[in-house]
């Protein structure tokens, strides 16, 4: 019975994904290009990867806390400060419905074991063989192949400077960057920063809410919106067209291992710091995705002359900082 909603959700996602057709192509997984998207296992742990749909429910905290409590007054001039929500950027006050929590917790445990029992040991062995710079280049290579996802989603969000940035990045990195192994376009001199846009974000920018929280086995945290996003992005990722299927699985698996090897320790740290790791990951995921939707493109942060205290506004091609609240 538990699986029924899941099956329905998946079915619905597929339908929607198809409805968008090829033009909706966007990236499947995605949040951060640094790490590949949804490859099994790995994906689960890098928050960047999964799109999820979040729902912006206002933090429950808001109402109960009123600054009037006399108790707080005693503390001095801070007394009128409400530790509720007033000064917290909206992106962080996000909560998400979790009607599937028992199922999600089971999947969380599954992904957790998958990481510690399979992905991590394999990635460690792989790291012992291939030095870090080489693994970074492999990551760059896959990231370069994901350019169509980012380009398409910049266009879908009418972010034309971002799209142009991605186009030039792809041309430069595919040529002087030796088929994407290096990222000269993103270097200091050229400064074309990768635009981490994916279809889940595109949907978010159209006003589609996350819906509720889902943890997929292998793929990790997501939501109906971000699941649709993942499916959309699947179609604009050239690796998806590898034939036969087992070559595709192999390449995606390799990508997952490579990504994992570059972020060993991240998941462990999140887990260790958490009081309840499931809740911590869920919240981190929705905060992360919400912020991604709000931001348009990567903020180009070039510090100006390094003068203490001098604020240097972000500048550069395609940069647009998220509105400060």
């Amino acid at each position, binding site marked *: 019975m538990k699986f029924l909603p899941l099956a329905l959700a998946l079915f619905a996602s597929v339908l929607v994904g198809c409805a968008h057709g090829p033009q909706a192509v966007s990236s499947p997984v995605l949040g951060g290009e640094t790490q590949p998207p949804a490859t099994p296992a790995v994906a689960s742990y890098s928050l960047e990867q999964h799109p999820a749909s979040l729902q912006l429910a206002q933090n429950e*905290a808001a109402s109960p*806390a009123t600054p009037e409590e006399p108790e707080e007054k005693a503390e001095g001039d801070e007394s009128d400060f409400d530790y509720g929500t*007033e*000064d917290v950027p909206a992106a962080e006050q996000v909560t998400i419905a979790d009607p599937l929590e028992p199922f999600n917790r089971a999947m969380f445990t599954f992904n957790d074991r998958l990481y510690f029992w399979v992905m991590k040991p394999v990635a460690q062995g792989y790291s012992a063989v291939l030095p870090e710079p080489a693994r970074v280049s492999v990551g760059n290579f896959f990231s370069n192949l994901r350019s169509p996802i980012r380009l398409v989603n910049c266009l879908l969000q009418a972010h034309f400077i971002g799209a142009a940035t991605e186009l030039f990045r792809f041309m430069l990195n595919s040529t002087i960057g030796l088929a994407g192994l290096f990222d000269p376009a993103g270097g200091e001199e050229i400064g074309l920063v990768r635009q981490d846009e994916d279809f889940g974000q595109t949907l978010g920018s159209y006003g589609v809410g996350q819906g509720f929280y889902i943890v997929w086995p292998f793929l990790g945290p997501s939501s109906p919106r971000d699941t649709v996003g993942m499916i959309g992005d699947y179609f604009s990722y050239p690796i998806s067209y590898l034939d036969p299927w087992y070559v595709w699985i192999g390449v995606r698996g390799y990508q997952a291992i490579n990504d994992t090897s570059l972020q060993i320790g991240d998941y462990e740290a999140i887990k*260790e710091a958490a009081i309840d790791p499931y809740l911590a990951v869920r919240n*981190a995921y929705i905060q992360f995705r919400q912020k991604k939707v709000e931001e348009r493109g990567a903020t180009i942060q070039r510090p100006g002359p390094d*003068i*203490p205290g001098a604020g240097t506004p972000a500048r550069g091609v395609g940069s647009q900082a998220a509105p*400060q609240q």
Partner: protein
Amino acid sequence: MTGKTVIKRLVVVVSLLLLVLGAAPVQAATPLETVRGEVNKVLEVLRNKSLKEEVKREKLRVIYGEMFDQEELSKWCLGPNWKKLSEAQRQEFLPLFQQVLEKTYGDRILAYSDEKIVFDKEVPIAKNRVEVKTRAVTKSKEIPMHYRVFQDKSGTWKVYDVVVENVSLVMNYRSQFNEILAKGTPDELLEILRKKVKSQKA
């Protein structure tokens, strides 16, 4: 513009001089300078290869005390739930929670050393509250890290939240504490924290 720059440089130089001389004119520092100063101290400890791990931890603990305001941070993490805790419970909560943070982030920080931290700018978020935007640059990527600071009663800028890759630590803990306190009592929360601290020591 350049006049300002010169003055800022002067302020920094003078502050540094005073620091060296043993005075503590921290109030004069802007939030960004304050955070930069503390972060540089952390990096110095991390890069000092002659120090033993326990010594490093001890030094980091001292810097943490100067840099963060544990009570402010805890209030933000608990949000409205702070009021549900009695005075005695708060007094127990503060050090327990600090130990949890110390252990986990201490481990994490000690594992790094090759990062370069770039200080970008400061953005006001509210009265007496500022976000200092920085980036940790590693070989393979850049991680945005923003420190939220407020001015305490002595006028010193203290950190009460750290936002890493757009995820606010305070709001992340709040989501967990909210859920735990929605179902349980403050005593149960303290018990969970006690267990967590114990397991970390084991």
